[in-house]
Every structure is written in structure tokens, then in C-alpha cells.
């Protein structure tokens, strides 16, 4: 009997260990895939770097016919569109998060959260389609009027320069802003909800208005998490491909004018892929993928660390 029980036990243990191993394997695929992404993409980029050298990052010209492959204008475009998107999305997202957590009556909270989540469900290509066919033609006269206002003004005149079409850095930034708003709003909301009631009540008891309470208690308390959520939004804006590819105008340009057509890393990869017949051109496009991968990796790395740290600190405090 004792022998049989031992037997059963060891059999059970084997099954148990096998199950544990299987779940570990499931988790390990993430590490493996991330490693494979880095390795294979870096490997296929070698040809481009061998042809161009480090000037790949500093050469503004993209002229496959002349065998010149520079990524600088696309890196610039990625940075500009992502910056516009963040500048537009942050105030709106924080407004939504504050409204849901501090102002809205409880019956209104769920509908607002559901509405913000629905924005995240709309596929990016649909935003792109809407942007190129519906929004862009309507924006052209708006851009023209705005650039007229700032004509001749020192710095702003160059940023809001002459506009000729609706497919510009600004259009791409606008569409990206819509897409990252639900990300920033939902994470900020979660962080703000952890703000201790005692902090809020304390501020109100001292005679603060609601806005002063928000400034003094809620925003100070959630600053770390908000910064993290904004960075996650930035990472998403940098990597978003299709919506940007459709509305950005697809012409490599480095200019301060946000009303000028431009191009970004993900959009040039998607756009030029079909016409990339030579090995060097494909390799150059993959090298741009690598650049994008590293850029988003850094942003997400920092963002995740910031969010984790502030979440941990808040749990410790409350």
C-alpha cells in the first residue's frame, strides 16, 4: 500500500513538473521572441550599414536610385509627428481622466470609460482612411488660414508655415493624437483613482477649490504615473504605421513647417516595401525598422519602469 502510494506520488510529481515546465515554456517564448526580433532584424540590417555606414543616421537624402539611403528625415518625421500627437493628446487625456475621477457623478463614469475604450477599439487603418478621405481635404483651408495668421511672426511663422495640402505632419499628429488619447487617459485614470481620500479631503477642508485640490493633491500624487502613461502614448505614436502612412504625405523632408508633407520611419517602411526590389533597399528599410525598434524599446523601457515604480510607491503609501 505504501509502495503504491509512493508510486502514485511520483507519477503525480512527474505530471506536476511537466505542467510547470509547460507554463514556463509559455512564459519563456516572450523572452525568446524579443531576443529573436532583435537578432534577426539586426542581422538583416547589416548590409545597409555596410553600404551606408553610420551616415545612415545622419544622411537626410533617401535616393535608392543613386544608392543613397539616409534615415535622418524619417527619424525627424517620427519625432515631429509623435511630439505633435503627445502635445495634443496630453491635455485632452488628462482632462478626461480628471473629469471621470474628480468631477463626474458616479452614473456618468462608466459611459465615459466605455466611450474612451471604444476609441481604442477602432482599427488604426480606419482612422487612416477617415484621415485621408474625410479629414485631410477639410483641413487644407484651416491650415492655410492658420499659416496666414502667423505669417511674418518670427518663430511661429516658420512652425506654422505655408500649407499646400491636407496631408502633412500636422494631420498625422492629429490622427495619432486621437489614437493615443485612450491609452494616456485610461492609465492616468487608474493612477488618479489611487489618490488617497484623506489627501483630497484634507485639501478641501483647508478651503481649496476643486481645481486647487486637484493641483495640490491629485496631480502631485499621480505625477509619476502620468509621466509614464504619456511615455507609453509616445511609444505608441512613434510606432503607429498605417494611419500615419496614409495621411503624412510621404515625402522625405526636414522642415520646421508642421504644415508641410513629410514622412516617418514606420510609414516609409510600409510605403516603400512593395517597390523594394534590391537587397540593399530592403536591408535599409529593415534597418529603419531596427531604428524604430530601439527607439520604442527605450521609451517603453523607461515608461514601464516609471509606471511600476510610482504604482509600487502608491500602494506602499495607502
Amino acid at each position, binding site marked *: 500500500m505504501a509502495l503504491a502510494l509512493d508510486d502514485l506520488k511520483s507519477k503525480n510529481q512527474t505530471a506536476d513538473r511537466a505542467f*510547470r515546465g509547460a507554463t514556463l515554456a509559455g512564459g519563456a517564448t516572450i*523572452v525568446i521572441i524579443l531576443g529573436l526580433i532583435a537578432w534577426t532584424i539586426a542581422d538583416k540590417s547589416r548590409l545597409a550599414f555596410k553600404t551606408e555606414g553610420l551616415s545612415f543616421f545622419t544622411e537626410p537624402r533617401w535616393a535608392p536610385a543613386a544608392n543613397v539611403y539616409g534615415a535622418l528625415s524619417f527619424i525627424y518625421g517620427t519625432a515631429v509627428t509623435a511630439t505633435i500627437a503627445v502635445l495634443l493628446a496630453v491635455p485632452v487625456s488628462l482632462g478626461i481622466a480628471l*473629469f471621470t475621477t474628480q468631477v463626474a457623478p458616479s452614473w456618468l463614469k462608466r459611459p465615459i470609460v466605455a466611450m474612451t475604450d471604444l476609441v481604442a*477599439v477602432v*482599427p488604426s487603418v480606419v482612422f487612416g*482612411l477617415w484621415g485621408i478621405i474625410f479629414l485631410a481635404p477639410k483641413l487644407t483651408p484651416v491650415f492655410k488660414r492658420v499659416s496666414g495668421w502667423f505669417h511674418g511672426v518670427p518663430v511661429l511663422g516658420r512652425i506654422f508655415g505655408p500649407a499646400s495640402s491636407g496631408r502633412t505632419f500636422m494631420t498625422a499628429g492629429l490622427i495619432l493624437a*486621437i489614437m493615443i488619447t485612450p491609452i494616456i487617459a485610461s492609465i492616468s485614470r487608474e493612477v488618479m483613482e489611487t489618490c488617497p481620500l484623506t489627501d483630497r479631503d484634507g485639501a478641501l477642508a483647508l478651503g481649496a477649490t476643486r481645481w486647487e485640490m486637484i493641483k495640490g493633491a491629485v496631480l502631485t500624487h499621480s505625477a509619476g504615473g502620468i509621466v509614464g502613461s504619456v511615455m507609453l502614448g509616445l511609444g505608441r505614436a512613434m510606432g503607429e504605421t498605417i494611419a500615419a502612412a496614409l495621411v503624412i504625405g510621404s515625402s522625405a523632408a526636414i522642415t520646421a513647417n508642421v504644415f508641410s508633407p513629410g514622412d516617418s520611419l514606420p510609414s516609409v517602411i*510600409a510605403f516603400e*516595401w512593395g517597390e523594394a526590389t534590391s537587397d540593399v533597399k530592403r536591408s535599409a528599410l529593415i534597418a529603419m525598422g531596427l531604428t524604430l525598434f530601439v527607439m520604442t524599446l527605450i521609451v*517603453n523601457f523607461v515608461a514601464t519602469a516609471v509606471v511600476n515604480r510610482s504604482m509600487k510607491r502608491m500602494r506602499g503609501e495607502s
Partner: protein
Amino acid sequence: MTAVIDNTSPAPAMVPLLSDLSSVSGRRRNKNMVMTVLMGVSVVVVGFVLLLVLITVVRKGWSIVVSEFPKWFTKDIQLSPRRAGPGMKAAIVGTIVATATATVIAVPLGIAGAIYLNEYGKRSAFARTLRFLTNVMAGVPSIVMGLFIYVFWVVPRGVDGLNAFSGALALACLMLPIVVRSTEEMLRLVPQNLRDASLALGATASRTTLTVVIPKAAPGIISGSLLAIARAAGETAPLIFTVGAAKATNWNPFSGTNTSLSLQIYANAKESFPTAQERAWGAALTLIALAFLFTFGARALSGRLSRTTES
């Protein structure tokens, strides 16, 4: 001021106090009001944009989907972008095939990974690293996933590598971190005493997980997976390099090029012909309907879950 201090119930007296501080109080109150209004406005702005997008898609897509009704779902795509008329069956089938294949790959792997994180790894250094990497992977741009599968999987197979399965691999890379994160969140909600009770009865850890923990968390796990599916179904960038460009229906994920609703929207949006653009709007309507269907399904499930755990 003295009136306030003398008052035994300060709360009602606070109101005249605030208005007494004439200019300062007025500025503070105005600022408060302006900021509150701005918060409300930001909610309205996003609601307005969402509504505008949805109305545009429905208004422009409706006619081609319902004209000659079943044809949109039963006919292959017009070969020339200039030709008018419905037919999106190939793309609908392609989206379903690629997304279903990706689900079969990513969901079991993701659930396994989440079980490891929550039931075995817990707070160990490896599990913490894994959790961190999962978050990092969730932020990898979808186009990089597509490039990765192209380089790693499609190139060694040549032209035969362009099929729905390759696309599904790229989509699976995208879904995996989402599934891991949402599943772990759900497993964490399962009360520890259920596990303890099962273990005390002599069940092994694996048996406890499979028969006690997973069934308890099932609605949440399914809901999280549905959200991941909705996300994958709408993705375009990972498919550009991996599934090729077909216009005829292909149910076989392992051979032959394919297409998808998202790819059709992308391709037709770039065309200047109104006939092609009309098809893009129709495909957008179909895709949004599909994504919302999965999302509402997930919401209904998670709503039921929160009710069962509350009672």
C-alpha cells in the same frame, strides 16, 4: 472672519467666507470653473471625434455593403480598382483565417505564460523580469513584428512563405503580451483560499490550477483574449509583408497568398478612384462591426464575471 470663528457649525459659514474674500475668491472660483469646464470639454471633444468617425464610416460604407445585399459577403474582390460594385468575401475570409490561426497560437501560449507568472514564478527575479519584458513587448510597433516574421519566417520559404499562416505568426506576436497581461490580472483575482482548500485535499499544484483556478478565472481570461483578438483583427502593418496580395478567397492558411479587410482598406484608401474608396469604406464598416462585436462580447463576459465574484 470673527463671525466664522464664533460660529459653532462652520460648514454653512464657509460659503459666505469664500465670497467675502471678494477679488481673490472670485479669481479662484473662476479658475476652478474654467478648469472644470475644460475637463468636461475634453470628454465632449473625444466623444465628438469618435461619433464623427463612426458616422462617416457607416454613412459611406452602408450603401455598398447593402446594395445587392449578399454580394458584399459572397463575391470576391473586383480585380480592377476602377470597376464599381461589391465583393469583399476574400478579405473577410482572410481576416477570419489569419486571426483565428493567430488566436490558436497566441492564446494557449499566453495563458501558459500567465499561469507560470502567477502560480509558480510569483515574485521571483525571473518572473519579475518576464513581467517587465511582457510590458516591453506590448510596446513593440506592429510593423516591427511584421518585419521580424518576414525576415525570420517568410524569407527562408521564398514566395511560398506568403500565406495567412505567416500573417498569423506576426499577429500572434502582437497578441501574446496582451493575453499574458490580462490573464495574469484575472488569475490574481482568484482568492488564495480556493487554492489552499484544493491543495489541502491532496490535489497537486497542476490539478489545482487546471480544475480550480482556471475555471474560476475563465470568463475574465476569455474576455481578455477577445480584446486581443479584436486588436489583432484590425491590424494592418504586420500583414503587409507576410500574407501577399490576393483578391480571391483562400480558406487555406498554409498555402497561397491571402488578403484581409485591413489590407483592403489600406490599398483602396490610397487609390483616387471613387469606386475603390467606396470599397474601402465598406471594408472599414465590416471591420469596425467585427471589432466591436468582439469588444462587446468581452464586456458582457467581464460584466458577468464581476457580478459572480461580488456575490
